[in-house]
């Protein structure tokens, strides 16, 4: 039971850590499947995190915050599209610039609006995403009723109920959105006209062009979806996981999401597993610091690096070659 409890808790942590990665990873998937490489996921998330928290703080409504976050991320997406689709610029450079821009702008604006050192005021009540409680799940209400902490109640119930209460129930709505996006993305990509065209434009834009479909339009659409998802990811960080924006709070998650995307070879279900794997590795590393192996204490640095080491090992051992969408990174040029 104790082991099971620990396992469930680690998995619960995995889900929370994986959610922003998953959203960003799916965002990148749309963009890169359409042939637009995006290393600016990090910047878009950060911008969205700030604007969602800022608007939620000012209006007191987390939903307005979410919209603001998405809008902010969309603006950066439009910039990326402008540079890499309309003006056929270098997609990597544009992504790098967007990351810098977000990193600087968030703090600059935060400072001039709130004067709290690049931070937004803390969110409370309606300004934050509450976690959803499923029927029959153990949650804070039960704790209040019985006057005992949730963790105690959890440790007393049976395994199924425990897993149900911890893993399925008790997450913010954005978590469910993120995981529902996986089948949805799969369905859009492989079952709809839009998906067919999207994948085609990432493989061979000339084929799409000569088939009478606008390459530019499709790519902008993909980049816009990417913006929306990054927006949700950022809002999740600042308004669901946390209660406000702190500078650089994305802490490299956009890059990890990018790694997960390559890991998943640009496929939605694999993306989910990759993000869960990254989440799990991090959760494990956080949970089991300073492990004592018969007198030898593993230094915290080893545990800290472990997710990254394991990623490399798994990548080298099991994943093999990842072939990106063929037209990825190349601007579509008819006439030179």
């Amino acid at each position, binding site marked *: 039971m104790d082991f099971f409890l620990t396992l469930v808790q680690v998995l619960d942590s995995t889900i929370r850590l994986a959610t922003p990665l998953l959203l960003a990873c799916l965002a990148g998937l749309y963009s890169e499947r359409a042939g637009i490489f995006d290393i600016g996921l990090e910047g878009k998330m950060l911008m969205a995190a700030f604007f969602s928290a800022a608007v939620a703080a000012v209006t007191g409504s987390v939903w307005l915050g979410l919209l603001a976050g998405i809008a902010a991320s969309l603006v950066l997406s439009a*910039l990326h599209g*402008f*540079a*890499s689709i309309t*003006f*056929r*610029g*270098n*997609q*990597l*450079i*544009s992504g*790098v*610039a*967007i*990351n*810098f*821009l977000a*990193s*600087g*702008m968030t*703090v*600059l604006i935060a*400072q*001039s609006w709130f004067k709290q050192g*690049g931070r937004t005021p803390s969110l409370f009540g309606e300004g934050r995403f509450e976690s959803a409680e499923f029927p029959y799940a153990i949650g804070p209400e039960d704790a209040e009723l019985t006057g005992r902490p949730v963790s105690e109640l959890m440790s007393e119930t049976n395994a199924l109920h425990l897993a149900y209460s911890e893993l399925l129930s008790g997450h913010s709505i954005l978590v469910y959105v993120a995981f529902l996006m996986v089948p949805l993305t799969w369905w859009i990509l492989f079952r709809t006209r839009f998906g067919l065209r999207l994948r085609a434009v990432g493989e061979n834009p000339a084929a799409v062009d000569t088939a009478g479909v606008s390459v530019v339009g499709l790519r902008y659409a993909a980049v816009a979806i990417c913006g929306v998802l990054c927006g949700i990811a950022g809002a999740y960080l600042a308004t669901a996981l946390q209660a406000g924006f702190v500078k650089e709070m994305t802490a490299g998650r956009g*890059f*990890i999401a*990018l*790694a997960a995307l*390559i*890991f998943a070879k640009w496929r939605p279900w694999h993306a989910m597993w990759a993000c869960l794997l990254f989440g799990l590795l991090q959760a494990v590393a956080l949970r089991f610091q300073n492990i004592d192996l018969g007198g030898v204490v593993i*230094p915290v*640095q*080893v545990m*800290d*690096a472990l997710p*990254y*080491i394991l*990623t*490399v090992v798994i*990548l*080298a051992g099991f*994943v*093999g*070659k*990842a072939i990106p969408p063929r037209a990825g990174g190349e601007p579509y040029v008819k006439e030179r």
Partner: protein
Amino acid sequence: MEKMPKWADVVLIPIISLLLATILSAIVILAIGEDPIEAVNLMVTGALGSTYGWGYTLYYATNFIFTGLAVAVAFHARLFNIGGEGQAMLGGLGVAIVCLSVPWPHWTIALLAACAASMIFGAAWAAIPAYLQAKRGSHIVITTIMFNFIAAAFLNYMLVNVMRPQGSQDPATARFPEAVHLPTFQSMFSTAENVMFRGAPANISFFVAILACFVVWALIWRTRLGYEIRAYGHSETGAVYAGISPVRITVIAMLISGALAGLMAINNVMGEAERLVLNATEGAGFIGIAVALMGRSHPFGVFLAAILFGFLYQGGAELALWTSIPRELIVVIQALVILFTGALDNMVRIPLEKLFMALRKGSA
């Protein structure tokens, strides 16, 4: 026949792009309620108006030249080395070990040894991702990102638990002995009556960086290895046809790239801090990506882009010293410069090409 003269492509477009970036930056400065003219003035005089300012500008530029060249060399083999940061950290470790463990008689020998050590350490850190890419197809972008994190953890462990002098509260190595201190610009260029570059950290490493530019240029465009690297970068199938081993080129290009990134340590660790501190690289590995992209992977372009970023760093520092403009403004300006000169250059090029075509038609 070209669409427009080469000088326009090489000189005019970057200048117009920079101008656009400057104008937008000015608007941002206005928006936060400061005076843009004053700000630009401060930045330019602070970074370029004195030998002192140059001393800082060139110090930063030296870092960026090394990491920019590192990224550029890998780019020529169509490898995206995001791992410059980690490789530079390891280079620092190499320099620290060399400087602390041997009683060097003179800085010249120490510098040679430090160069070798930093290059070996940097290359070693690039070797595993390189090997995995070449042999297992593990995507170099992921592995180098991961290796940055691993390097940070490793360095943290070394500085906190191994190399920190007993009782020191600072997670850093001991100071390097006097004998290995590199000559700074101050000591090189000052005369008795005229002190130049006073206190600035620019040091002899800058000339090593310039040398590295020439070496990389010669390597890429003048040697057979460089020819193979470029050929492989343009076409893998072509390389196989020509008997160029993709595995070999991938590994060699990454080793060179890692060595160059590692070499940065002679500047920041040996030349400036004179000891190894946590976070000594300060993101120079990532700036190197922007520098290489903006410099179009050409050593001369890298050099210019590095100077530009050095200017932004030093100008930004001066701005922060004398005004209340938040330091993040500099990050925004950097973003705008990267955006306009790097990603939106076609926005300038397309109308300019039309203009030149029209001029040519008009004169013909």
